[in-house]
């Protein structure tokens, strides 16, 4: 594959490809290129993994303790703390 020419063209479509909003033609083109180009394959796999790691951490996120009490107090909403 001619890296200078071909791969960057493909990469500009990558966001749509990963978000499932690329056209069928673009998807097919990217799949085909990845099958032939190990570098782009690794690129896409590690890109997906990168997003996964951040999302995964976000899902396990917990608010700091006393968060709601501090916030409600600072906003003078103490009366509504009970529920």
């Amino acid at each position, binding site marked *: 594959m001619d890296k200078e020419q071909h791969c960057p063209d493909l990469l500009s479509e990558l966001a749509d490809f990963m978000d499932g909003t690329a056209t069928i033609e673009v998807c097919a083109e990217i799949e085909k290129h990845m099958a032939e180009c190990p570098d782009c394959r690794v690129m896409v796999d590690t890109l997906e993994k990168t997003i996964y790691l951040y999302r995964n951490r976000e899902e396990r996120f917990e608010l*700091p303790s006393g968060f709601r009490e501090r916030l409600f107090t600072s906003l003078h909403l103490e009366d509504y703390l009970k529920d």
Partner: protein
Amino acid sequence: MKQEETFSIDALRSGDREAFAAMVDEYSPKLYRLALRMLGDPQEAEDVLQDSLLKAYHAIDKFEGRSKVGTWLYRITSNEALMRLRKKQPALVSVDEPIQLDKGDMVPRQLEDWCCLPEDEFMTAEAMVQLDQAMEELSPALKAAFILRDLQGLSTEEAAETLEISESALKTRLSRARLQLRESLSIYFGDRVKEFMHG
């Protein structure tokens, strides 16, 4: 974002405290995470959240109902966080992110395949620090796009509306952010792969 609110916009507009409390309960966890990921500091994130919600309360009569309350709150909070970042690190904040992706951005430099590492390797405290550091290196504009779209799950349209930029500009920023994070993480996890294979 949810369509149905647990509070009435009209009550909110007329200064009803109970409606405000309900709004705070509904949106504060998401807004806090936005501020925390933007700023990287829990204390500062709580300050930004408080300031943003106060601003929202006092400006509720300016809320026109054309966008959703959530989008409006996200906008106030991200602007507040961006303002803080500008004060802290003025050199880092470029107002005009390039609209087009330049080729230089798009050519990957790190091509180690680290996906195969055992799952534990991704969960260590050290790995978490790497995630934070990589995020910290993003420009605020890129960071905001990544957080809203990929971490908070807003649609492209909602994220673009929040940041008051076009959808194509949002997509460009999102791609740049993702690629830059991938490069940073690849350096660290690429080294883990080499260590793993050689002992």
